[in-house]
């Protein structure tokens, strides 16, 4: 046996073993700082990308949920939570591992996954294991399809496409509409497909569409030139705010100034460090959350988040925050106690969620309700960016 090769393994194996050994003894570092003794708090678990390129979404959700849990635990009512988030790196395979780690920890109720593709994986497991899940932001309809115990806090992608098309038609925002969407992304494709179908029905004039992929999300000049040549006066952007900010700045550089219409992924554009808000002036978006909202709950949440994490919360954080409070409401309504098993809680939550009306940071005063499929019903807010802040569009 070659000594060099042998050594390679000895090292690798020894390191793995030592890691595994410490892994067994240490408790999860990601768990909440307010650990309560077993049986006195509901063990609430969720997976999300906490490292890697998509970690902005996972960390936002984790932090939003953590603030809600801290608030609830500080009040010291009958409902207490013990929160733990595990990293899934926005990968369905890793999400299964993360979910299993939570199961070993003793998760009783779940916050599902933060992003859609991992969400489809973990929700299937949630269904099989009978652990109730309420996902803050995994918006693909596949996440809840065929599962009776997986609920969403966010709009599903097709609903956003539908609502956007209806909104644009009602308000007569554009004569010629052009869409720039991300072709290797579930979220973007889902919204765009439904938008196109609905636009067709409503008689909106979609003059063209162009795509980009993760590998080519720097340069949008080609797409913008196509839109300009098609004389589009409204650009629909069913994408996240990172590429959207590049589109805005490149459109300005080429002297093209259509109206821009975004979806909830656009929320967060104003929170980017050093972003010139003048670029986003007049951008419209449909979003359930608005960090500049005047109401007390939003202001208090935003302030706490900024103090603790030094950033302005994006919609993912608000959705996760709402999830925890929605759980609190549902658990109280159903009279659940932390010593109940995951299976009992699953049955209770399935009964309770379709019956409650929840008021939170996302959605408007009319409250948030769910149907038995797990889909949420809340009204999106039409926002327009004016002087670097959101303003209601009506």
């Amino acid at each position: 046996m070659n000594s060099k090769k042998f050594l390679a393994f000895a090292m690798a194996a020894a390191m793995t073993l030592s890691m595994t050994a410490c892994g067994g003894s240490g408790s999860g570092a990601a768990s909440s700082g307010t650990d309560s003794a077993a049986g006195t708090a509901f063990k609430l678990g969720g997976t999300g990308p906490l490292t890697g390129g998509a970690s902005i979404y996972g960390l936002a959700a984790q932090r939003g949920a953590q603030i809600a849990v801290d608030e609830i635990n500080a009040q010291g009512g009958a409902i207490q939570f013990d929160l733990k988030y595990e990293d899934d790196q926005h990968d369905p395979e890793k999400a299964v591992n993360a979910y299993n780690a939570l199961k070993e920890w003793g998760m009783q109720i779940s916050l599902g996954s933060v992003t859609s593709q991992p969400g489809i994986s973990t929700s299937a497991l949630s269904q099989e294991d009978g652990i109730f899940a309420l996902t803050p932001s995994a918006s693909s309809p596949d996440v809840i399809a065929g599962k009776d115990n997986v609920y969403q806090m966010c709009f599903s992608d097709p609903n956003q496409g539908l609502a956007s098309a209806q909104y644009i038609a009602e308000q007569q925002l554009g004569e010629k509409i052009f869409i720039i969407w991300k072709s290797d992304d579930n979220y973007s494709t889902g919204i765009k497909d439904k938008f196109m179908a609905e636009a067709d029905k409503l008689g909106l004039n979609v003059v063209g569409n162009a795509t980009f992929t993760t590998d080519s999300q720097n340069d949008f000049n080609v797409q913008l030139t196509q839109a300009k040549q098609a004389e589009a006066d409204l650009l629909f952007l069913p994408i996240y705010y990172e590429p959207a900010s590049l589109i805005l700045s490149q459109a300005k550089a080429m002297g093209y100034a259509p109206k821009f219409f975004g979806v909830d992924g656009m929320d967060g554009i104003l929170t980017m460090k050093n972003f010139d808000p003048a670029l986003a002036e007049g951008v419209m978006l449909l979003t359930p959350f608005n960090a500049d909202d005047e109401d007390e709950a939003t202001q208090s949440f935003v302030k706490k988040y900024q103090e603790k994490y030094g950033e302005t919360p994006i919609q993912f954080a608000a959705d996760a925050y709402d999830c925890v409070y929605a759980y609190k409401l549902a658990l109280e309504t159903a009279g659940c106690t932390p010593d109940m098993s995951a299976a009992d809680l699953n049955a209770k939550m399935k009964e309770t969620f379709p019956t409650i009306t929840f008021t939170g940071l996302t959605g408007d005063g009319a409250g948030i309700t769910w149907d038995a499929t797990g889909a949420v019903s809340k009204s999106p807010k039409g926002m327009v960016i004016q002087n670097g802040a959101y303003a209601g569009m009506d």
Partner: protein
Amino acid sequence: MSRVVNRLANMNKTTRSSVFTYALVVGAFVILQLLRMTTGLGSVLEGQLIPICAYVTMALALNLVVGVSGELSLGHAGFMSIGAFLGCAAANGLAELIPFTPVRLGVAMVIGAALAGFFGFLIGIPVLRLNGDYLAIVTLAFGEIIKSVLTNTYLAVDKKGLHFSFLTDKNALEEGGLQLIRGPMGVMNTQRISTFTVGFVLVVITLVVIFNLVNSRTGRAIMAARDNRIAAESVGISVTKYKMIAFVTSAALAGAAGTLYGCSQTTFVATKFDFNTSILILVFVVLGGLGNMWGSVIAAAALTILPEALRQFADYRMLVYAIVLILVMLATNNPAIWGFFARLRERREEKKGGAAQ
């Protein structure tokens, strides 16, 4: 007992190494199965068993190209994705025809392997004309192209037969039609039909294929072409032909691993099988030792478990993983440590030699 030891000691090195590899894989399987039946493995490890089998197979397949045939491939995840997409599409499409899942999975794996092998052949024609780093970059290029193409592929089946469209979904389905590949949304499996036992069987088949190939006339020709291309050509070995045999075999095995992996996941997308995944598998091979099959098995399994074992480091775990990787590479290639082991072996051999005299 002592006879067995003697026979082991007298075996030639390659046979001993293959016996050890089989023993390792079978032993690990038996122990894991016993643990599963008695105390249980814990959900995390339990959930990783099938992906580990898939990655072990991938590492073995890549080792055949990189270690045995001596060509650096940076696009092997592409073959895995062909197997995963087309194999799973076949598995889902055949659900009504073959209700017995192990057979369906077997058929799907054969289809995945055949198609990946076919693409391996097509890609091999241009690729194997190149040398060294140029070959590496072309395999990287093909890996990226496969990813792009699969991301834009839509495949569906209904009573009228298969529907295929590219770039946008133009498949008009009849009632009861089934979408097999959904472009950027990847593949959705209603049922996860892969099992650990099938994964184990795949690993064993892979080992049988590779060891038989390596220890045959063909295998010696492949290694001769690796060690000295010109000398090999001058004794009449067709270098391209033998390199092609290794490349296609490897692609087919990667395809089978892809099908196994795909059928163990509820969903997967083409971007999963990108450059980073190719690199990940290359790391298994290099860490396990080029040409060393049992090394690939252990490295693939250990490095798949490692990030999970590092969960306690939370946000720092990928950083720790990177540091471990660098340190292991530095330590295993440190001349001082090699020197120490070489001296140790020398001394042992001297002793042996002395005893024989």
